[in-house]
């Protein structure tokens, strides 16, 4: 009956108002889903100032503004690029054998002015939601090489990285014709960006950190965080924003949103507790930075998994992520590379742990659907798909970053001059000071 009414209405619309023919072909707006997606866009945007505070608090006083500017600059640069070419490259139809997508409709977002997607939300909302992911990913990398990068080179680097590494990865994993989206029975599972965002950012960060070398005086002089209070607030904002990041990635407002939201909360809490228990046992004190590192490790690990795991899986992933990330940071200190704010230790390792180990906690209904689609489907097969997706993300991000660095470094020296590094990024690149009078360095 409803279908009849609708087609009747459509018929009337076509006959009476020829101008609206195009619009009537589109799905109706689902105001519930749209409202939640609008909220999610705002929540994910909030993560970026959150990240700025998180990273800003962890560096030395002389670099606090420069480090916060890394996140803020990404908001400017990546948004503009997203409108110009990012959305087209990430979500357009395959070109160049599926390396990335392209659609002139998406150039300057010109063709989506009135588009409503099948999910019942305006395409503008989806595009802006995805833009926030393109912003936060390069901003995450900045943690690996904080305190020693020239601002100008950083801006060029994230522009190139976002265009050449992020957009193709995003296309492979999330566009409907991306090859990782169609790998195996029901695709490689990456609900909200474990491979696209966290593994790619973490691995690229590691590559840049090794390329640039350590900070002056690393590691023989201790370099303590200038303001952990700001770091705690930043971590709080990240946790809040992550509900938009994960639950928003359902692109709906319903059951799957609730499942993702629940998994997110549980993994963050379990990760935090696991971290302070490990740290407290191992080193005798449960640090505030340890707690928030655990929160992030848990959140990162649940990011790819939020859509497919139940609460028990979320808890397990949070705990496992903290364990692995804690070991990764200990190992970093042994190996001696200067991943300043542990972008690889938390985002790289946490992302890999989440993307691979989620296989063992997939809810039965998902496996049943996968089996229906492929005839039969086992955990081991899905594990293979996950491992392959992770491997592809790692190798593409590492190789691509290396190439960008070598080319860019010939044009704009990426590393700060010794003098600029000593004076601090704030004074050298921005001519400002973060605080009045706090720590004397």
């Amino acid at each position, binding site marked *: 009956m409803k279908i009849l009414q609708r087609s009747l209405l459509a018929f009337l619309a076509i006959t009476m108002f020829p101008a609206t023919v195009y619009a009537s072909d589109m799905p109706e707006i689902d105001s519930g889903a749209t409202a939640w997606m609008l909220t999610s866009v705002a929540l994910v945007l909030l993560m970026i100032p959150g990240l700025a505070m998180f990273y800003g608090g962890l560096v030395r006083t002389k670099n606090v503004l420069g480090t916060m500017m890394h996140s803020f600059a990404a908001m400017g640069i990546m948004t503009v690029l997203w409108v110009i070419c990012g959305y087209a490259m990430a979500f357009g139809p395959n070109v160049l054998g599926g390396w990335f997508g392209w659609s002139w409709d998406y150039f300057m977002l010109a063709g989506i002015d009135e588009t409503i997607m099948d999910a019942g939300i305006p395409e503008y909302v989806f595009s802006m939601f995805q833009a926030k992911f393109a912003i936060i990913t390069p901003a995450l990398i900045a943690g690996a090489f904080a305190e020693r990068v020239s601002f100008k080179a950083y801006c060029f680097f994230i522009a190139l990285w976002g265009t050449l590494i992020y957009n193709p990865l995003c296309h492979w994993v999330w566009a409907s014709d991306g090859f990782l989206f169609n790998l195996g029975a029901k695709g490689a599972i990456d609900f909200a960006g474990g491979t696209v965002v966290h593994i790619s950012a973490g691995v690229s960060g590691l590559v840049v950190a090794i390329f640039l070398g350590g900070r002056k005086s690393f590691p023989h002089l201790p370099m303590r965080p200038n303001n952990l209070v700001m770091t705690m607030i930043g971590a709080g904002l990240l946790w809040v924003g992550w509900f938009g990041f994960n639950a928003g990635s359902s692109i709906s407002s319903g059951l799957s949103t609730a499942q993702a939201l629940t998994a997110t909360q549980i993994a963050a809490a379990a990760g935090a507790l696991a971290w302070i228990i490990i740290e407290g046992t191992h080193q005798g004190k449960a640090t505030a930075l340890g707690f928030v590192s655990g929160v992030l490790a848990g959140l990162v690990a649940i990011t790819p998994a939020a859509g497919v795991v139940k609460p028990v899986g979320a808890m397990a992933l949070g705990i496992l992520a903290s364990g692995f990330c804690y070991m990764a940071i200990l190992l970093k200190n042994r190996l001696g590379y200067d991943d300043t704010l542990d972008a690889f230790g938390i985002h790289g390792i946490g992302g890999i742990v989440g993307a691979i180990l989620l296989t063992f906690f997939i809810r039965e209904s998902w496996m049943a659907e996968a089996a229906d689609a492929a005839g039969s489907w086992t955990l081991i097969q899905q594990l293979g798909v996950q491992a392959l997706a992770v491997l592809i993300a790692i190798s593409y991000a590492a190789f691509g970053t290396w190439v960008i660095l070598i080319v860019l470094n010939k044009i704009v020296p990426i590393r700060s001059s010794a003098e600029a590094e000593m004076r601090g990024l704030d004074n050298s690149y921005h001519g400002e000071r973060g605080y009045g009078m706090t720590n*004397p360095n």
Partner: protein
Amino acid sequence: MKLLIAIIRENQLDQVREALIDAGISRITTSHVSGHGRSKTEEIYRGQVVVPNLVPNIRLEIAVNDDFVETTCNAILNATTAHDGGLVGSGKIFITPLEQCIRLRTGERGPEAI
């Protein structure tokens, strides 16, 4: 015993500290201070020329036995001139006699306590 008070550029704290540690002087006190020197640093901030009236500096206080005065001064001098480019405003070292020194933990007095 002498008390050395060095006023140095803010950005040179790390290199001075490292130089002092290399020279075997690790007992120092630092603080953020601001003041006037002979220099007038003009900075351009958001398109306007600004002359900050009180320039932020770092003050180091180092108590040493007489034998170490030269070592300490040389360490500071070498570290500050290395990257300075001869601009005014590098800072100064003041050396004053130190009457007494007491280590709180043990109550030792004099040169041993430094």
